[in-house]
């Protein structure tokens, strides 16, 4: 899992770095266009384009029937039925490309969260670090931080949830390694600080399946730790002074790209 995650993260990091000079919305727009084109191509290759074309003609025909024979109840009823059937057929035909694209697009979106969902910890502002441990008996966790990050409280042991929390406060910008010792074993977690943008790793996990959802860091090697999380502020994309959710912008741009380029690629959508 670590290899797969690294394989996705690495090009994304290069891509992000290439657009580091520009507002984040530009890089996001470019990647959305690329993904939109990619999805269009996959759609064209994995869908039955002939049937797609036929079913769309059927839809248009039904709509025309509805308009022309608006005063003929029997015809209108038949057209409605035909429209309904054609729509279902269309959705059926779109299912295969959708299934093909589901996993890669989902993986991509999960990996993009590290760049667009979380903002680094602001300097001088407190944040809570929480570690979930496996087994109720683990209580001897210790947190050490570099000089740039202060640990402000003793650990809070929450037995009921098998969690241990600390309050930290970053003092300088960049990335820093939080070093934990749990049951004698060293464990690390990377945090991003400062007021810029960049790769902000989310939850670090130990389980292979959990690493699908939280792919930003290598899996925690210690079986005593389930996950380590830092509460980051939420990031947003600024477009013409408006703060938008990055996913909304991604969907809008990728769909627009696909719709605008479908004729050039000869794909029926």
């Amino acid at each position, binding site marked *: 899992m670590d290899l797969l995650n690294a394989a996705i993260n690495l090009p994304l990091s290069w891509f992000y770095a290439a657009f580091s000079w520009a507002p984040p919305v530009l890089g996001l727009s470019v990647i959305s266009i690329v993904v939109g084109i990619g999805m269009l191509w996959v759609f064209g290759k994995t869908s039955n384009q002939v049937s797609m074309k036929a079913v769309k003609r059927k839809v248009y025909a039904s709509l025309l029937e509805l308009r022309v024979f608006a005063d003929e109840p029997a015809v209108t009823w038949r057209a409605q039925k035909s429209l309904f059937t054609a729509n279902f057929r269309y959705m059926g035909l779109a299912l295969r490309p959708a299934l093909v694209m589901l996993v890669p697009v989902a993986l991509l979106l999960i990996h993009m969260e590290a760049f667009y969902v979380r903002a680094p910890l602001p300097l001088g502002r*407190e944040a*809570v670090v*929480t570690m979930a441990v496996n087994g109720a008996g683990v209580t001897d966790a210790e947190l050490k931080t570099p000089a740039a990050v202060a640990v*402000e*409280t*003793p*650990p*809070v*042991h*929450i*037995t*009921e*949830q098998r969690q241990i*929390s*600390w*309050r930290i406060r970053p003092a300088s910008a960049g990335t820093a390694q939080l070093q934990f010792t749990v049951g004698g074993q060293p464990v690390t977690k990377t945090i991003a600080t400062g007021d810029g943008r960049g790769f902000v790793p989310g939850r670090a996990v130990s389980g292979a399946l959990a690493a699908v959802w939280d792919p930003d860091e290598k899996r925690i090697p210690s079986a005593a730790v389930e996950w380590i999380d830092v*509460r980051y502020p939420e990031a947003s994309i600024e477009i013409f002074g408006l703060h938008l959710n990055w996913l909304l912008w991604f969907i809008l741009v990728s769909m627009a790209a696909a719709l605008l380029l479908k004729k050039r690629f000869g794909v029926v959508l």
Partner: protein
Amino acid sequence: MRVQWGRPPGLRGSPLTRLAEAGQGAGRGQGRPPHNLYRNVIGWAVFSLLVLLAGCGRHTTQAAGKRMIVLGVDGMDPIFLENHWSSLPNLNRLRTEGDFRRLATTIPPQSPVAWSTVTTGMDPGGHGIYDFVHRNPATRLPMQSMTEITEATKTFSIGPYVFPLAGGGIRQTRAGRAFWQILGEHGIPSNVIRMPANFPPAECEAESLSGMGTPDLTGTNGTFLFFTDDPLETRNGGAAGKLVPVKLQNGRAVLPIEGPPNSLRKDHASTSVNLIMYPDPLNPVARFDLGDQQVVLKQGEWSDWLHADFHLIAFKGASGIFRIYLQQVHPNVRVYVSPVNLDPEDPALPISTPANYSRTLSEKMGPFYTQGIAEETAAYRAGLFSRAEFLSQSHKILADSLRMFHYQLESFREGLLFYYFSSVDQNAHMLWGKHDDDLLEIYKGVDTAVGEAMRAAQNGATLMIISDHGFARFDRSVHLNKVLMDAGFLTLDDPANVGDDAAFVHVDWSKTQAYALGLNAIYLNLEGRENGGSVSGFDKQTVLDEIARKLLAYKDPVNGENVIDKVYFSATAYHGRNLKYAPDILVGFRRGYRASWQTALGAVPKVPLEDNTEAWIGDHCMASDEVPGVLLSNRKIAAGAPGLADIPVTILSGFGLQKTTGMIGQTVF
């Protein structure tokens, strides 16, 4: 510049008509709009721009780069200043380079009254605010003096829900126009931040934020919550707090944070969110979770602001912010939760003009206190806070206020900036005469703001520092209703029924001529005004004179000294005739004496006078001459005895405007 309000030459018909005509032309196969459309559009654009510029020109003419900064420091006392000039370098420099005067306050010298005079230039007879509370003549019960809440007149019900269709709302009761409204009418920009008795904020073009009188989200002046699992804790939260017992189960405690009553439900059921506390089993530290927000606090620490959304109905909630103070973790949990403030980012009630201004401020500087009086005197009075804890919270508020002042000063370009500080007043109430060093630290905080303001005013701007009143010790509590009873003006159904029961529950109104409610007020039980009043209009002045004579002769049995310095009749003390809620007599106590808390709520305790043993040790609700405020300026003050009513006239005059009808003051320069 003279603006020609006719049509621009060469244009006929409305621009919309012309655009429509051109559009039809295009629809008829002309590939592009006709050439004259462009000319017309450009013509209109140029014309609109000229009109806009003319308007802007007119708006900036009056201000013409003039700048005035006024800092309102509630409760800043002239004698305290005179005793501490050496510790207050900026204030000291201001008085030596500029001027310093005592500033006559209002009758009575209470903040809502005094600041309403600063706002309108009228005395209470004009603006109609006489106390923190007024009394309803029909019930003789206290009511809010600064705001009035009305229920919707038309509603629509579905199941348990009720939706207002018409009427209802909250309005300010102060009469008269605010000086910044007048400035706005003459195109002079102003920022008026936290002016007391300005909730909801007066409609105006200025950027304003409401101050004292702004409620918390539950609609009170501020109700804190104090959670503990200590079974031996017997104190309650006092008048402005609630002590809530909690249970620690499985290492966690659920702390219900009370929100506003749900006005969209027929039963007005209260709303709440659950704050979950996880104390560490050994360390004096705890984690608090509220939805997806988490905070870790050590014992003795304050949290930053937490946001809470109180659910009212689908897709609609009321947004609030609050802070937590972890007083103790072991052996018992003790957690203070501040009153839930209106969230400035999405206020449930109007707190600013324009309406989105509070959001703008919040985006620029993060969440801030919106509650009118945020200093937690109530928890200190209830014994739930130590002095150190009270001070730590007070300094947080002062820091919050200084931060906003700094932002305002940075963005101030021209016109007027008014900024209000509450910290001196609230701290003086708890520290006056006993903990002067602590109070001086608060004064020093304000002194830094004065230093900033002096720097900002260096290029010819006028700077004024004003306070609404001074301070005095509050050593002895006067139970005015018992004084009236002993003098034969108030009768109980049974003389044995003296006690702390509020709202005159044992008063025999048929045998009562006068009663006291509020902190300086005595009302006659007047026929035709009070429900079942016993004093006829014919006897009114005779009774008033008799009460005044006896009050002025009244002596403290402990030291034989007079208790009351002055007695004022509202019929003769004021200029205006807005006397609907005016008390008949205003009592001016000597320094050291004040009406008791029981008097304020209509109780008739056993004794007429007793020592004030509360944490609230300083006050100003005395004779006005005893507690003047201050006026400092970077300009020489010509007025020999300036008063609060002079301030708005001076501000208007500073921008070349005359005082308006009802204003009773003169410019001080």
